[in-house]
C-alpha cells in the first residue's frame, strides 16, 4: 500500500471503468472538502491509501481522460511506471513543502507521461519551453514568467517541465556556457533554490 493524493485515490476507487469525468469531479470535490490551502498559509495536502493495482487503474483512467482533452499520452502502467507515478504524485501533491523534482532516468521509461498524468490529476497547468528554431532567451523567460504568474497570482498548481533536450539544443541567441551549463537549467535552478528568484523574473515596472 502506498500513500497517494486524494485525486488518485478517488480515481482508483471509482467503479467508472471508462475513466469518465465523474471520477475526476468527485476527486476534486473531495480535495476541496478536505481543505483548500489558505491563500497565504502553507498547508500540506491530505493523502489517502491506495495499492499499486489501484494506482495502475487510476493511471489508465487518466490516460482516457487526458486523451479527451486532445493531449496524446501513451503510457503502459507497468510496475516501474506505477512506482514513479506514486513518487511524482507525492511531490506534486506536497503543497508548500519540497515541491520540486529532478527525475533521473533513461528516455522512454515514462518520465514525462507520468508527470503529465499526475499534473492532470491535480488539475495543474503544464508549462514547457519549446526549443524551436526561433526560440529566444526572451521566450524562455516568458515561459517561466507564465508559470510563476499561474502559481503566484492565480494560485493554480503549475508544473514547469524542463528536460535534457535543453542541455543539447540551445540555439544561437543563447549564451551556452561550458560544461553543458545552459540557461534553461539556470532558470530552473534559481526557481528551485529560492522563491525570491520568482520576483526577480519581473522588472520593477512590472512589479509596481
Amino acid at each position: 500500500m502506498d500513500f497517494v493524493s486524494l485525486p488518485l485515490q478517488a480515481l482508483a476507487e471509482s467503479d467508472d471503468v471508462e475513466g469518465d469525468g465523474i471520477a475526476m469531479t468527485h476527486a476534486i470535490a473531495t480535495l476541496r472538502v478536505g481543505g483548500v490551502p489558505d491563500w497565504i498559509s502553507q498547508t500540506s495536502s491530505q493523502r489517502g491509501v491506495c495499492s499499486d493495482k489501484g494506482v495502475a487503474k487510476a493511471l489508465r483512467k487518466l490516460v482516457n481522460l487526458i486523451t479527451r482533452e486532445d493531449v496524446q499520452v501513451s503510457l503502459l502502467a507497468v510496475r516501474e511506471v506505477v512506482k514513479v507515478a506514486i513518487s511524482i504524485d507525492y511531490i506534486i501533491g506536497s503543497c508548500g513543502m519540497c515541491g520540486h523534482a529532478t527525475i533521473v532516468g533513461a528516455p522512454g521509461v515514462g518520465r514525462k507521461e507520468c508527470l503529465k498524468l499526475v499534473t492532470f490529476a491535480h488539475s495543474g497547468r503544464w508549462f514547457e519551453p519549446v526549443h524551436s528554431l526561433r526560440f529566444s532567451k526572451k521566450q524562455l523567460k516568458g515561459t517561466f514568467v507564465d508559470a510563476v504568474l499561474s502559481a503566484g497570482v492565480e494560485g493554480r498548481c503549475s508544473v514547469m517541465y524542463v528536460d535534457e533536450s535543453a542541455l543539447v539544443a540551445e540555439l544561437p541567441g543563447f549564451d551556452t556556457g561550458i560544461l553543458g551549463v545552459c540557461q534553461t537549467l539556470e532558470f530552473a535552478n534559481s526557481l528551485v533554490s529560492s522563491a525570491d528568484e520568482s520576483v526577480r523574473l519581473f522588472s520593477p515596472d512590472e512589479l509596481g
Partner: protein
Amino acid sequence: MQERIEEEADAREVSLSSNELLLSAFKRRVQANLHVVVCLNPASTAFVPALAANPALTSKAQVVWVADWLPTSIALLPRLLLPSPLGGNASLTDDEIALGYESGNGATDQLA
C-alpha cells in the same frame, strides 16, 4: 501584477496592507503551487556537469531515480502492442500490468 494579486486578495477577503506583505504572500504562493521538474538522462555526458553547475536541483529538489524496466515488464510489451494471433486485442488486466505477471503461467514476478 500587483493589481492582479490585490484583486485576488480582495476576492478572498484577505488584507494585504503593504507591498512587502504582498510580495511575501506572492512568494509563498509560488512556493506552494509551482513545481519545477527537471528530467535528466544519466547516460548523457552533460549529466554530471549540469548537476554540478545547478546544485539546487539535487539539494532543494527531490531526486526520483527511474530505473530501467525489468525483463518481466518488457515481456508484457508485445502482448499489449501486437494483436493476438487468435484475433481481438491483448487481454492483460490491470493487475497483470501493474505487477508484471504473465497470465496463465503463474507469477513470474522477479521483484517480489
